[in-house]
């Protein structure tokens, strides 16, 4: 167990890390009587003493044992004190070794040689016992600092590893969440036939607070929604996924008492379900929910604080559908209106999130409604499958530049194509289809 941080520095003769184990000192001297003298002295001060008769033996001792404090003679046959310092410094012992050289030399050239070799301190022979004791205490203080630094580095490294592993885990989880979320989006516009649908989905983070879908409610009638949860990232995505289960019939427990056929009532129920009783608003959503009679183009639509849907008529005229109530999830009792409109052949209804109009370019300028409208109008002229989504995707990416999108971007476009062969004329009863298509 490592010592706790902020512990006071150990006293001389007290161990560095383990209060009951004495600090080991390696005494290196070729003179056995001097080693004995030092042993007695050091043991009296509470140290545990290991002896070596020369540098070579001392080095072997350092490599074999956890010894951090060395008192070594300078002059020894074979490997001298400075040689021992150099060898110890060149060896990776896994920790710092504090070396005090005992020497009869005192001129500065010798001092420099010893320091350059890697000695930490000198005690000049003959020495006073109290001086050696004080030098040993200095050594212990420095070793304690070194130990604390090593511990902190170890802790830092460990935290870094934990952070990196948590981050990788989060990234992996997000990737899975993003996949799940994309699975909740439509894959084909089969359910809308003979009408057509196309869409664009560009999440700001990996996961998104935007969501949209359409599904067959009864033969010939589809329900559709586009929603934007306040905020983005994980919390918004979680709510978006859970809402998706409420919003698609048969997709989950559903909104209690929901009437999918009556958009205003649908939003009233949804709002009641989302609103906190205590008045704290954490997450709320703006949403457009509607139904479309596929063969007549009759649309019932209700809006909750959502960006005004755009109606693009077949002749190019553009209308904003401005009616609507407050976002869902803010106030306990809110009324919504259902508005009725008709998609004539060639008309399109565009639902979108404000991530599009507020998407800013590098200078901070918002993409805005004009460019949005103009992009859609040009794409309609070009025509083709998915023309609107493709054009908007390209235009927004060019507008934004290399930076990530700041907010989720999504658009759902419903189109009632110009009459084609086999399309029943308006007003005729839709063909009955006992099989409900899953979105």
């Amino acid at each position, binding site marked *: 167990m490592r010592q706790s941080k902020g512990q006071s520095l150990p006293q001389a003769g007290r161990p560095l890390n383990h209060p009951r184990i004495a600090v080991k000192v390696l005494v290196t001297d070729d003179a056995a009587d001097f080693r004995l003298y030092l042993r007695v002295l050091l043991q009296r001060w509470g140290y545990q003493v290991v002896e070596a008769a020369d540098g070579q033996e001392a080095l072997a001792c350092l490599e074999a044992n956890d010894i951090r404090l060395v008192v070594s003679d300078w002059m020894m046959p074979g490997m001298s004190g400075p040689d021992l310092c150099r060898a110890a410094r060149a060896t990776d012992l896994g920790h710092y070794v504090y070396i005090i050289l005992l020497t009869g030399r005192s001129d500065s050239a010798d001092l420099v040689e010893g320091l350059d070799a890697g000695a930490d301190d000198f005690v000049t022979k003959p020495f006073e016992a109290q001086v050696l004791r004080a030098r040993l205490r200095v050594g212990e203080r420095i070793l304690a600092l070194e130990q604390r630094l090593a511990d902190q580095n170890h802790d830092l490294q460990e935290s870094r590893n934990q952070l990196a592993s948590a981050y990788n885990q989060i990234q992996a989880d997000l990737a899975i969440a993003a996949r799940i979320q994309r699975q909740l989006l439509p894959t084909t516009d089969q359910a809308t036939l003979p009408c057509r649908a196309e869409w664009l989905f560009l999440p700001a983070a990996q996961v998104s607070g935007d969501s949209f879908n359409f599904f067959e409610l009864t033969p010939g009638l589809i329900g559709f929604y586009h929603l934007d949860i*306040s*905020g983005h990232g994980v919390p918004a995505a979680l709510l978006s996924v859970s809402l998706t289960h409420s919003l698609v019939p048969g997709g989950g427990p559903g909104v209690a008492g929901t009437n999918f056929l009556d958009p205003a009532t649908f939003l009233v129920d949804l709002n009641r379900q989302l609103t906190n009783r205590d*008045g*704290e*608003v*954490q*997450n*709320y959503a*703006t949403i457009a929910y509607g139904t479309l009679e596929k063969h007549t183009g009759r649309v019932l639509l209700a809006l909750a*604080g959502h*960006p*005004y849907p755009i109606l693009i008529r077949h002749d190019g005229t553009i209308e904003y559908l401005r009616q*609507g*109530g*407050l*976002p869902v999830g*803010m*106030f306990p009792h809110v009324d919504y209106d259902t508005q009725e409109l008709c998609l004539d052949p060639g008309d399109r209804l565009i639902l979108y999130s*404000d991530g599009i109009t507020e998407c800013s370019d590098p200078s901070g300028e918002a993409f805005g409604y004009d460019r949005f409208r103009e992009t859609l109008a040009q794409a309609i002229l070009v025509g083709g499958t998915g023309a609107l989504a493709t054009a908007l995707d390209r235009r927004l990416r060019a507008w934004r530049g290399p930076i990530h999108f700041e907010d989720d971007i999504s658009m759902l476009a419903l189109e009632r194509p110009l009459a084609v062969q086999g399309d029943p004329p308006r007003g005729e009863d839709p063909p009955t289809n006992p099989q409900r298509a899953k979105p």
Partner: protein
Amino acid sequence: MNLEHRTQDGVDIIKLPERLMMADAADARATLKEIIEQGSGKLVLNLTATSFMDSSGLAVLVSGLQAARKRDGDVLLVGMSNTVRALFELTRLHTVFQIFDDEPGALRAFG
């Protein structure tokens, strides 16, 4: 968050920061809540300096409004910039909040 806050005629007048976005929403929420609990529940929020507000900022204001009304108070907004006003109109929240041009107007409304 240190919001500039003073009290006049029993009304708490609070100056909102330049940005009221996701990152600082939690702080602003806590500060407003504290002011509402300790004061009369009558609040004037000055948005003159506020040029950026996102959905999290809106959530804070709506939470404040509901807390204040629970105490028979209200939250009146003054000095709204065009961009913030557009956000309120888009979400139809301008139908819920009383919005004034300046502080004296809002204070008169509290009577």
